């Protein structure tokens, strides 16, 4: 019997040291020369990125002719790239309409979408369409089938000198003009120079519009602003010039001018696939390169990838270099100082009041909000009824805890206060931008006139009665991926004190969720036991002393 016990002990003794080194303890941090498999996969998928090209555009005769306008350059481009305009015409970059949205309720900037920045394009085209990849979308009459109206240069020129005038309906100026909005002087392009410089789009090309959405730098996304033109690794591990130095198109892979990415209700990727499973899959998701189990074997984070988006842990804060706009209150617009419109700057050096626009709140290093998200964002259209008794979500992430494609993902939520029709219960389009004699708000500062004009231009009914309602608008946070030591730590979510996941429902989160009934009964049992033994001990002590005495 005893021999058997000793044998058992020896066996245990042999067994334990072998088991005593699980991966979590063996690898407290990344050892030298050893890294997570997901990083290795991504490095394999992206190394050797030297691009080559068989054409030198500065030698092409077509680009040496004298040009006086954009469309002339476009025609020259199309003389070789015969299908380019046809391809462009099918993209949302051109139509500003979500091709997947219903025909009777088209969604998109160019259709019935409404946001809580400048609200809507209708009536404000010349200003908004300075970010359209075309020439001359100044009102509804713009011809979307005209090939020569495609602006090849804004995405492809590489001199950095080509500028569309901010209020020029997508056209550059023909002679030097100062834009009153920013006081900058805009110069006519040196057409031959910019045309001969063309190449694949860089961060600068995409950034010209996408870093300045909403009318200025840092206004819209929170994870896309001018700091991303030349970010360092600390701001973005992929795009950092001291890191991987990726251009946007490194992930936003492009086929026939269709740039990979989410389009309103169409997710950026329909399936969760890696390049190893499908070498032509777009690199638009983290998983494309990093795989679905990117961390070292045995690391708990690998078990999170089914329900938690990579971005949730790896982008702990957005707007880390520059502040971003978090709130826009239109209801306070129109105040004047000495009868004149004015602007006021806040502590972050950004405007906090503007007579034209109302009050703003800006924030830096912002913690995202979290929602279940299957890659789809749904939105209120200008035709949809709204409930003004509570804040109106103008768009919202779609996804439920039980949806296998939905994961918890981070978002910037921009709040606003903007006009709605108190009779028709719909959101309203203000005509903002226009000449001094127009009904535009920035001309006469009269909401009623501006709303009547805006709704008329949008072809939508307006009762004439309006008020302001609280709204929210979401942006998925996916850029500005931080170095891994800046990831969100476990206890920021697995905590009872108002953690990052405080509002996430539909999942049992250890450390956040307890069980009240079990806890109350449990403590009753523990305290009961304690009281019982204390009383018993007291009894023994007293009776013992009595005997001794």
């Amino acid at each position, binding site marked *: *019997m*005893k021999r*058997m*016990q*000793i044998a*058992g*002990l020896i*066996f*245990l003794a042999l*067994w*334990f040291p072998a*088991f*005593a080194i*699980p991966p*979590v*303890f063996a690898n407290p941090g990344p050892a030298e020369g050893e890294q997570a498999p997901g990083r290795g996969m991504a490095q394999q998928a992206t190394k050797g990125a030297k691009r080559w090209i068989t054409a030198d555009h500065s030698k092409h005769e077509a680009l040496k002719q004298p040009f006086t306008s954009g469309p002339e350059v476009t025609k020259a481009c199309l003389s070789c790239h015969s299908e380019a305009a046809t391809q462009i015409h099918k993209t949302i970059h051109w139509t500003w309409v979500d091709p997947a949205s219903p025909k009777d309720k088209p969604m998109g900037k160019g259709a019935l979408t409404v946001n809580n920045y400048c609200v809507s394009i209708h009536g404000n085209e010349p200003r908004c369409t300075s970010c359209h990849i075309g020439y001359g979308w100044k009102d509804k009459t713009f011809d979307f089938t005209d090939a020569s109206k495609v602006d090849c240069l804004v995405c492809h020129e590489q001199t950095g000198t080509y500028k569309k005038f901010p209020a020029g309906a997508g056209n550059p100026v023909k002679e030097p003009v100062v834009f009153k909005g920013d006081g900058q002087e805009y110069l006519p392009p040196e057409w031959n120079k910019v045309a001969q410089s063309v190449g694949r789009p860089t961060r600068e090309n995409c950034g010209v519009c996408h870093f300045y959405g909403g009318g200025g730098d840092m206004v819209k996304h929170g994870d896309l602003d001018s700091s991303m033109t030349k970010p360092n690794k600390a701001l973005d591990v992929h795009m950092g010039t001291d890191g991987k130095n990726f251009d946007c198109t490194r992930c936003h892979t492009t086929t026939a001018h269709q740039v990979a990415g989410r389009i309103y209700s169409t997710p950026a990727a329909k399936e969760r696939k890696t390049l190893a499973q499908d070498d032509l899959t777009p690199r638009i998701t983290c998983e494309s390169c990093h795989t679905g189990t990117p961390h070292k074997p045995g690391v*708990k984070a690998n*078990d999170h990838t*089914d329900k938690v988006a990579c971005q949730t842990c790896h982008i702990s804060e957005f707007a880390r270099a520059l502040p971003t706009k978090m709130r826009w209150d239109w209801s306070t617009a129109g105040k004047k100082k000495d009868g004149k419109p004015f602007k006021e700057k806040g502590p972050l050096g950004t405007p906090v009041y503007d007579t034209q626009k109302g009050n703003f709140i800006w924030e830096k290093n912002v913690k995202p909000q979290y929602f279940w998200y299957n890659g789809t964002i749904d939105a209120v259209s200008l035709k949809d009824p709204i409930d003004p008794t509570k804040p109106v979500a103008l768009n919202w992430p779609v996804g439920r805890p039980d949806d296998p494609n939905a994961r918890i993902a981070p978002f910037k939520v921009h709040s606003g206060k903007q006009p709605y029709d108190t009779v028709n219960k719909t959101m309203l389009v203000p005509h903002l931008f226009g000449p001094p004699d127009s009904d535009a708000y920035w001309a006469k500062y009269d909401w009623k006139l501006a709303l009547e004009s805006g709704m008329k231009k949008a072809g939508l009914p307006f009762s004439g009665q309006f008020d302001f309602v609280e709204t929210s608008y979401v942006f998925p946070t996916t850029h500005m991926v931080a170095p891994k030591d800046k990831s969100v*730590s*476990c*206890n920021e979510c*697995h*905590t*009872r004190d108002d953690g990052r996941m405080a509002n996430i429902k539909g999942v*049992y989160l*250890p*450390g*956040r*969720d*307890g*069980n009240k009934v*079990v*806890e109350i*009964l*449990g*403590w009753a*049992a*523990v305290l*009961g*036991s*304690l009281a*019982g*033994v204390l009383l*018993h*001990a007291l*009894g*023994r002590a007293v*009776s*013992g002393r009595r*005997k*001794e005495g």
Partner: protein
Amino acid sequence: MDTNNTTCKMVNIYLYTRYERFWHWLQSALIAILLVTGFEANGLYTLFGFKTAVEIHNFVGISWLIAFAFFVFWVFTTGEWRQYVPTTKKMLEVVRYYLYGIFRGEPHPFPKRKDAKHNPLQRIVYLSLAAFLLPLQMLTGFLYWSYNSWSAWGLGWLSLKVVAAVHLAGGFAILSFLIVHLYMITTGHSLGAHTRAMICGWEEVEERESIEDWEIKSRVKTTG
């Protein structure tokens, strides 16, 4: 406790074998760590931080599971399981002793013997513990730990919320047991007698005339 006024003779007996003692202290250490890290992971307090607490808890829990298999092997191959067979015989005597006799300095109605280590009350308590509560805790802990594999194992219908609640309830039950257990070990003929026995194996107990048949673990029944 005061034993001088009794007429009992004290004898030294070898109660706990080496493995038994090793197992007892190993298990108590594992359980202590599991309680501390488990309640932290549940969100009760912050000591190691959630991540470290969970890592320790997982590692110690799996270790316990493996070590417990050896205990089960031991308990059956040595026949020690007979010490855990429950009985209601003379249960009331034991209860009466702890509620009354102990205060009057009466001798324990069932002094320990090598072949009968557990009195009827201990039998029922340790059986519940070793055959029900601890395995339940290991099972729910293992399920909790393997949450991500549930669908693959055909256990997709399980609810983490329920598994977590049962596991937490088990944790409270073990903590309650621990409190009572820690107190009860002071009730030997001296405050440290039981503890010393579990360390060196020998315990000084009151001499007892006979062990009744039903108490004996051995298959070969001996009489007085």
